[in-house]
């Protein structure tokens, strides 16, 4: 009990320090930097969501970028066609993307392992085709996209929402739902024997992840002041998976490392070549798989264990995908 309390206290202190740093950061940064950091917040939200599916329920999803797109187009449609205030569109975008996730998840999550990865990959490819299509131009603006405002840097709003959603995920995952999810992931048969319906939990996790992605997409749309299909290519979904792997599957606090990486690393690499960022993403992902399968969070846990402060691991991680 004491140990659990101490671990909560440590997490609380880390969180408080992070909030303080995030709060003062913009006063040292220009518009461009603030936008980048706001974007980190958006990816942060999407990765927290993806981690619920991939980390906690053990399913590979390559469709997170498509659900971001659903959220972004919801915002674009409501703001440009119906004149809804952009901030009111954010919860709607989350709800629409979440509903889309549930609808897709009901058939897709009957599929085991690789099939779901394939289905979500196909979803990511199809989404771009449909979004670019002039058939739905009234909603999506077709190949032109939707314009509804000027580029902004919604830094505080993004990080406020990000922290709220992080705490929500934390709360939900450390309770009964999270325990059931991990049970389904680690021992499906045992979970079924204990009266859990795996499909319900997997689908719910997928829906929640999609809703998170929808919010992230809405924020991205607000930052850009426009929506275009090119922002939601399958590569985005892969990038988000890279960020999740780097942060650590099944461990929320590594997420910030993943989000920072996918925003800042390409900026450095683009100096070398336009194509360098994707090569580097891939190499990093491989390096993570080889060297630290648990991602940054696992690294932090290990360092902490080395320092002898805490040896007990509060969070578990996937049984699959481990190197040791």
């Amino acid at each position, binding site marked *: 009990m004491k140990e659990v309390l101490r671990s909560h206290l440590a997490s609380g202190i880390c969180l408080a320090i992070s909030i303080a740093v995030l709060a003062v950061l913009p006063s040292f940064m220009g518009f461009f930097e603030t936008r980048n950091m706001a974007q980190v917040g958006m990816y942060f939200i999407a990765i927290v969501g993806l981690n619920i599916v991939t980390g906690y329920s*053990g399913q*590979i999803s*390559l469709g997170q970028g498509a659900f971001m797109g659903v959220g972004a187009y919801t915002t674009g449609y409501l703001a440009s066609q119906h004149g809804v205030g952009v901030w009111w569109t954010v919860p709607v975008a989350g709800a629409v993307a979440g509903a889309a996730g549930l609808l897709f998840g009901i*058939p*897709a999550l*009957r*599929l*085991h*392992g*690789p*099939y779901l*990865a*394939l*289905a979500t*990959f*196909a*979803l990511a*490819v*199809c989404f771009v*085709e*449909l979004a*670019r*299509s*002039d*058939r739905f131009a009234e909603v999506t603006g077709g190949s032109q996209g939707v314009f509804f405002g000027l580029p902004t840097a919604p830094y505080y709003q993004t990080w406020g929402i990000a922290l709220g959603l992080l705490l929500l995920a934390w709360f939900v995952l450390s309770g009964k739902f999270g325990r059931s999810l991990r049970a389904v992931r680690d*021992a*499906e*048969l045992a979970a079924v024997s204990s009266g859990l319906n795996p499909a319900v939990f997997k689908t719910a996790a997928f829906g929640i992840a999609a809703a998170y992605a929808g919010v992230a997409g809405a924020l991205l749309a607000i930052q850009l002041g426009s929506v275009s299909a090119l922002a939601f290519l*399958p*590569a985005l979904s*892969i990038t988000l*998976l*890279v960020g999740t*792997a780097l942060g650590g599957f099944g461990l929320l606090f590594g997420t910030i490392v993943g989000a920072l990486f996918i925003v800042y690393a390409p900026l450095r690499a683009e100096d070398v*070549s*336009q*194509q*360098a*960022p*994707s*090569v*580097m*993403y*891939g*190499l990093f*992902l*491989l390096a993570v*798989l*080889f060297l630290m*399968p648990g991602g940054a969070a696992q690294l932090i846990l290990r360092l902490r264990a080395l320092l002898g402060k805490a040896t007990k691991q509060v969070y578990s991680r*996937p*049984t*699959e*995908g*481990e*190197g040791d």
Partner: protein
Amino acid sequence: MIDWSELFQQIVAGLAAGGVYAILALALVLIHRATGVINFAQGEMAMFSCYIAWSLINTYDLTYWLAFALTLAISFAGGAGIYGVVIKPLSRAGEITVVIATIALLVIINGLAGWIWTPEIKFIESPFPPGTFTVGDVVISKQDLWVFGVSMICVSVVFAIFRFTRTGLMMRAAAIRPSTSRLLGIRVAFMLAVGWGLAAALGAVAGLMAVPSLGLEPSFMLTIIVYAFAAAVLGGLDSPAGAVLAAYILGVGISLLSTYVDFVAESQEFKLPIAFGVLLLVLLIKPTGLFGRTVARRV
């Protein structure tokens, strides 16, 4: 009134497209049988092979068929190398890790191709004579027929290798019962590497068949590979014959769909989502694919 000659033409065109999907689907099934994972990088490996062929033809002035043969050999070595360097060391870490590794390879290979050859579109001439010939009042494109023929040759060769050669037998043994095979003196890792090499070479053929009509750029395989995934899953990931058959059905189906269904004919971008919808529907009814066996999963 149905225009029979048009129908027949569309079927041949569909068989040609289906042939490309069939070769790739076969490669996917090979790898799935050998290593138990779906190789997300299959399409990008094929794309990279096409760039190698382009370089051999344009930079080194080789004739098409010499470049073709060399590309196949290089792809074979590359595929086996990828298995040895990336897949094998990670294979003990579990399915999710290996699948993510192939996704990483997808990204790396895609980026590398754009980096080395620039993303500008390039062209490789078809090695087959252009033109058509007519049977009755049906006009058939010679190139379509050739592509279909090449796909049939590939499929037959692969089947022959697995069915009639000692290496094929050892490869099947290594994939199905690795530890028993090892005890019998089969070099399992070597056999699986050969499987990956074979898959890469097949991918190269598929890419080279598809490239004359599409043009070569780093993401030209993206939609093709999704069709090949669909075919492999439709046919059942463990059934090579099923995957090949499903690929031809898919090719013809898509071809007919985009001719005879108005809203698909008008907006070609609906082809992929429709194929995908059908795939989801089939999987709902029969989760192991049309020709897959239901296997009890180990818990």
